[in-house]
């Protein structure tokens, strides 16, 4: 698989605080990568590092195969656009002036794409209104337009829907999906609004305490989170033999628990297990959401 961004044992310390601790992540090309973690988990720190705002303490990262120690990293950053925390826009300029300024920074020969970009983000009718008079959603969309000015292949968005109203959230979601589907832009979105992410992401990375806990594709996550029957048995090996014989899809959770992804006849299952000297202790319906998956993954108890 081709990766746009890879990090290898990345560390960032602020004095004695480990903001990132041996973080390894892989953002596949063409994906919408949901970077999930609670506040202070290290999401923004990672984004600051890959954007060149801060230096790594140890470890490395690669953007389009170019490592951060290679001076050519500056060239691969030209293929990137990012909105880090708040939109980076001049408040005393209009939307058009902001885009023209970014075009100058990029050294674009003309301002031909400015109107198209404003239309893409729905700000074509803002006229002479300065950005300081924009709503939060409009500023966020202008920030994305500025990030798109260099026609990037990789877009990094840090908490893009934070503080937005429902309408604003829908607009940003539709914009991100449009960019990914129509322009094939790889998107890295950090967020802790899991419901919103689940509508967008094709891949997930779960971070906690500066460490990557798990990376999983949306398809795999769907498999894990889909409806199932969770059973507790006395002998998991005997249970596996029975499941294989009955040709039922299942997954083992631990040495006493397993999930069955099929409609089952509990009586038949009980008899089949009994034949293998295995007791069926409990049966319950199990339906995991992204939220509960995340809480289970990072150990919800310790954050209570």
């Amino acid at each position, binding site marked *: 698989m081709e990766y746009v961004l890879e990090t290898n044992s990345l560390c960032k310390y602020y004095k004695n605080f480990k903001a990132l601790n041996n973080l390894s992540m892989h953002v596949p090309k063409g994906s919408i990568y949901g970077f999930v973690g609670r506040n202070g988990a290290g999401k923004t720190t990672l984004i*600051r590092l890959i*954007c*060149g*705002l*801060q*230096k790594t303490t140890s470890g490395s990262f690669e953007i389009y195969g170019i490592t951060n120690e290679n001076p050519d*990293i*500056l*060239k*691969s*950053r*030209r293929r*990137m*656009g*990012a909105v*880090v*925390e*708040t*939109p*980076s*826009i*001049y*408040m*005393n*300029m209009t939307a058009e*002036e902001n885009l*023209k*300024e*970014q075009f*100058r*920074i*990029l*050294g674009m020969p003309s301002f031909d794409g400015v109107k198209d970009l404003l239309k893409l983000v729905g700000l074509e009718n803002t006229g002479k209104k300065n950005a300081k008079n924009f709503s939060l959603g409009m500023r966020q969309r202008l920030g994305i337009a*500025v*990030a798109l000015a*260099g026609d990037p292949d990789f877009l990094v968005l840090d908490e893009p829907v934070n503080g937005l109203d429902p309408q604003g959230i829908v607009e940003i979601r539709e914009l991100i999906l449009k960019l990914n589907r129509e322009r094939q832009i790889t998107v890295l979105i950090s967020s802790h609004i899991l419901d919103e992410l689940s509508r967008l992401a094709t891949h997930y990375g779960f971070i906690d305490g500066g460490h990557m806990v798990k990376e999983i594709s949306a398809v795999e996550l769907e498999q894990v989170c889909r409806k199932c029957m969770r059973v507790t048995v006395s002998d998991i090996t005997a249970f596996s033999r029975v499941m294989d014989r009955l040709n039922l899809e299942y997954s083992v959770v631990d040495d006493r628990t397993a999930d069955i992804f099929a409609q089952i006849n509990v009586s038949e299952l009980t008899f089949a297990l009994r034949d293998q000297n295995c007791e069926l202790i409990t049966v319950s319906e199990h339906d995991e959401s992204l939220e509960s998956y995340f809480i289970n993954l990072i150990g919800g108890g310790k954050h209570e």
Partner: protein
Amino acid sequence: MNKLISANFARLFKNGAFILYMIFSGGLSLVMIFMRYVEYHKHMEYYNNIDPTYHTMDSIAFIGLLYLLFAVPVFVGNFVCTEYSDGTIRNKLIVGHKRIDIYLANLIVCTAGTLMGILLHLLINFTLGIALCGIEELTVSEILKLTLFGLIAFISLTAIMVMVSMLVKSKAGASVTTLIATFIMFFVAISLNNTLTAPEYYENSFNPETMETETIKNPNYLTGTKRKVYQTIYDVMPSSHTYELAMTSTENVGKFAGYDGIILVVTTALGIILFRKKDLK
């Protein structure tokens, strides 16, 4: 770096602090010239008796630069730190511009902005000012020499302001820090100048027995190493240079310009080193 300079210039002409700085520079000239003109014509006889050159531009040609000394930090602090307060410095880094280029582009554009204000001020002084008030003692070569020296002094001053602004990052913080620093430097310059130019002996004590004026040694007169240290501090500070300029003193302009060059190189090198190491948010 050309891209950054072009983008910064486009932003400069829309920057409110720069526009106010330019209005202040030009307005200051106009106010000074008209006040001098009106004041002289109101009390012509009096001024002709005490100072025959009072009505000319000689004494006020460069004095406005002392006021601009306090306007430059406000303009530079606002221009540079807008990048931090609006977060737009990130746009430059994310698309792959080097930190050294970002620093130098800011320095170049702020310097150009500062010099535009100085030149506007001097241009009005030497066109409208001379047309209305005339000039008697300053020669063309002295004017050119002092103008060049003024530009160099303000380049070094801008370099200090850019360094502070790039490192402090807060718009209000940078402006306040540089303004306070400028005030301190200015009063230190005046104080040092008074100390260094004080005479070694006073001749104001009249002895009625001998019918002669006695000379008394000035107890605060500086000598030896202490005088050298005070003189060096005075020579190095950009505020001293502006003060000398305001007094239209051409005596040490070469030496002062040399110190300005050193300040420019040292502050820029230090600023770049520290800015490259700085974690940005």
